[in-house]
């Protein structure tokens, strides 16, 4: 089974992957365009997602090595620093066992949202700087012609608005991670 899906929020993605596992589909590969490959399985698995920015080769080997010692399998992801871990369900299904490391995880998620959100903003600025959303001539048109042109152009306008919309969603997931991070900080 193959499914195409795009996630901005890493925790939502983890949730979705675990829902598929409950239906008996185990993710085996994720490509950079957001195509998830699944296979049918009878065994129970869990998936956990971590976020680690670029790790040099030696660090990555150590990182993967420690997780593998605990029984986690590394699933090749799309890059971008999201690390996909899968393991047979045996009751020890978490990748973080204390508040400090859980907090650091949310800190990393905040960084993730921040950088990609900024990227979207820069991209939006580049697009909107020297083009208007609608053609200038549009507003001089009359009657049916105006409506036809408006309807024709609107999908392109929505496409142009996509980066700023994404920046907004990144801002939302930054905030969510921040709330969880500060809740963990308060208790310690």
């Amino acid at each position: 089974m193959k499914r195409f899906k795009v996630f901005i929020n890493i925790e939502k993605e983890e949730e979705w992957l675990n829902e598929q596992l409950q239906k008996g589909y185990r993710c085996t590969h994720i490509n950079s365009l957001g195509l998830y490959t699944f296979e049918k399985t009878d065994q129970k698995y869990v998936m956990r997602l971590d976020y680690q920015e670029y790790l040099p080769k030696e660090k990555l080997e150590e990182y993967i090595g420690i997780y593998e010692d605990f029984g986690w399998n590394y699933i090749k992801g799309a890059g971008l620093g999201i690390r996909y871990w899968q393991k047979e369900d045996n009751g020890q299904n978490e990748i973080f066992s204390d508040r400090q490391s859980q907090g650091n995880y949310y800190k990393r998620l905040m960084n993730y949202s921040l950088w990609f959100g900024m990227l979207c903003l820069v991209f939006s600025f580049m697009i909107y700087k020297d083009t208007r959303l609608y053609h200038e001539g549009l507003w001089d048109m009359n009657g049916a012609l105006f409506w036809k042109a408006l309807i024709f152009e609107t999908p392109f306008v929505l496409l142009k608005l996509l980066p700023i919309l994404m920046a907004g969603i990144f801002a939302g997931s930054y905030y969510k991670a921040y709330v969880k991070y500060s809740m963990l900080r308060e208790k310690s």
Partner: protein
Amino acid sequence: MKHKLLPLSETMHYILLALREPLHGYAVMQKIEHMSKGSVSLAAGTLYGAIENLSKHGWIEPVGHSGRRKIYKITEEGSTILKMEQERLSHILSLYEEGEVNEEV
């Protein structure tokens, strides 16, 4: 200002204590499970992050390999930290004992 890892969290404390002998990551987890009588069971991400953090601050250091696994040991600086924590905790323990004496009086 106090170091940001002080006072030591339970995880960090146990890892430093375990690494008074050289061990690789997974062995650290196993040793801690034993030392804590099963009450502290580190997860993979927590262990990785703690090792990263402790070696960044120079409290532990890699001392060799066992296959593909890196072996770590506590440093001079790490031992000093343990010493400081020991003093802090024994002081707190002494306060517990004082309390008990006062109650008896």
